[in-house]
């Protein structure tokens, strides 16, 4: 069965490593914070100027001055810090943040990503996404394999305006974990009960399928 959003977040959480600083984008990526493996210490950075993000506040304890990049009210953990936007992106560009997880509208077999604009229809802006993808050593994209019309979002080349080129290393969808290298998607794992055939059918970009594709263990 295909994963739901929580399943995708749980699978991405398995990529975390002890001692990492991690930036989570809006949407599914935000959920990753809920599934940090037991005994592991990971600090979450939000590009609007906080390191050491904690859970959402209890009702009545919201602070308008304390939000994440999705403009949601948050709390901070002991040892947190606040800083200005230039310092925040120094952390990101300077590769002090080890992992970036973000959503996408399209990803290409060369690791290009598009997630900020649909010409003539939707222009929200790139926010911090271009800075994040241009610099992070590890970029994992959390997305659905196909759009609402059923068309693959895992493509030979992006059709929408790009956010970054050759930067995405790994994609986790409701169907599969894909690694991007040498100009192709490599099928690493499939969601429990999902067949390799379904993944092949829903992947428009070049897909390398090994003889054995293990199921994800969530």
């Amino acid at each position, binding site marked *: 069965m295909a994963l739901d959003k929580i399943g995708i977040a749980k699978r991405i959480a398995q990529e975390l490593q002890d001692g990492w600083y991690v930036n989570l984008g809006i949407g599914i990526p935000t959920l990753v914070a809920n599934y940090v493996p037991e005994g592991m210490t990971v600090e979450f950075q939000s590009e609007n100027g*906080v390191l050491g993000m904690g859970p959402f506040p209890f009702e009545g304890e919201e602070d308008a*001055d304390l939000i994440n990049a999705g*403009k949601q009210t948050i709390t901070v953990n002991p040892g947190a810090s*606040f800083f200005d*936007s230039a310092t925040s992106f120094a952390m990101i560009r300077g590769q002090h943040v080890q992992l970036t997880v973000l959503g996408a509208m399209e990803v290409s077999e060369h690791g290009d990503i598009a997630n900020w604009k649909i010409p003539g229809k939707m222009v929200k802006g790139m926010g911090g*996404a*271009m800075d994040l993808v*241009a610099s992070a050593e590890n970029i994992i994209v959390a997305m659905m394999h196909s759009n609402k019309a059923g068309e693959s979002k895992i493509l030979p080349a992006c059709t929408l305006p790009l956010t970054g080129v050759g930067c995405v290393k790994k994609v986790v969808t409701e169907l599969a974990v894909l690694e991007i290298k040498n100009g192709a998607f490599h099928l690493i794992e499939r969601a429990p009960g999902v067949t390799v055939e379904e993944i092949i059918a829903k992947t428009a970009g070049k897909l390398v399928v090994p003889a054995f594709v293990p199921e994800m263990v969530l």
Partner: protein
Amino acid sequence: MNKVVDHISDALKGIEDGMTIMLGGFGLCGIPENSIKELVKMGTKNLTCISNNAGVDDYGLGLLLQRKQIKKMISSYVGENEEFERQMLSGELEVDLIPQGSLAERCRAGGAGIPAFFTPAGYGTEVAEGKEVRVFNGKPHILESALTADFAIVKAWKGDTEGNLVFKATAMNFNPMMAMAGKITVAEVEELVPAGSLDPNFIHTPGIFVQRIFKGAVFEKRIEQRTVRKRA
């Protein structure tokens, strides 16, 4: 040097039609809300506003958009504002979208006397069009120029009569860089205290960057996405 102005109209005196204004804030967090309302009252037109976001339809910079006081917005993300999207798609409003880190650094550079810098952000995208590309350590970068403004309007938690500022939590965001990049920087603060009351070890923005400071009358501090968890 005493930077205090008693009335908000004195704080914003000199802002004229067609000027470029920086406004601090991320979403509605840390925006100079009193000054924005005053700009509505002043009716100043054809403004170029440099601000990470454009407010929401009925608050923040959305108030200036509603009244068509803004000619051009320079921002990184404008997704929370329908009127903005309408004006942009119809061509009434000029919009320059900039990666958030580049926007922050361009303001910092403007205030720090650095005319331009190279960044990897935006290489290979629309943002790089017409910009010089240079390879450093095997990686392509694009040349981004500094930003300055006729006025920078920032919001701080505490400020003293010398213009020294302390920000609270994530309400800091773009405010410190913009404070540096304004020819005239106006700070509206929640608490205005006498010089000597703030610990010099914990000043975020030194008073040299601030020309005028005043205590804001009302801080509504609207929350865009109120997210909470239930008590166990």
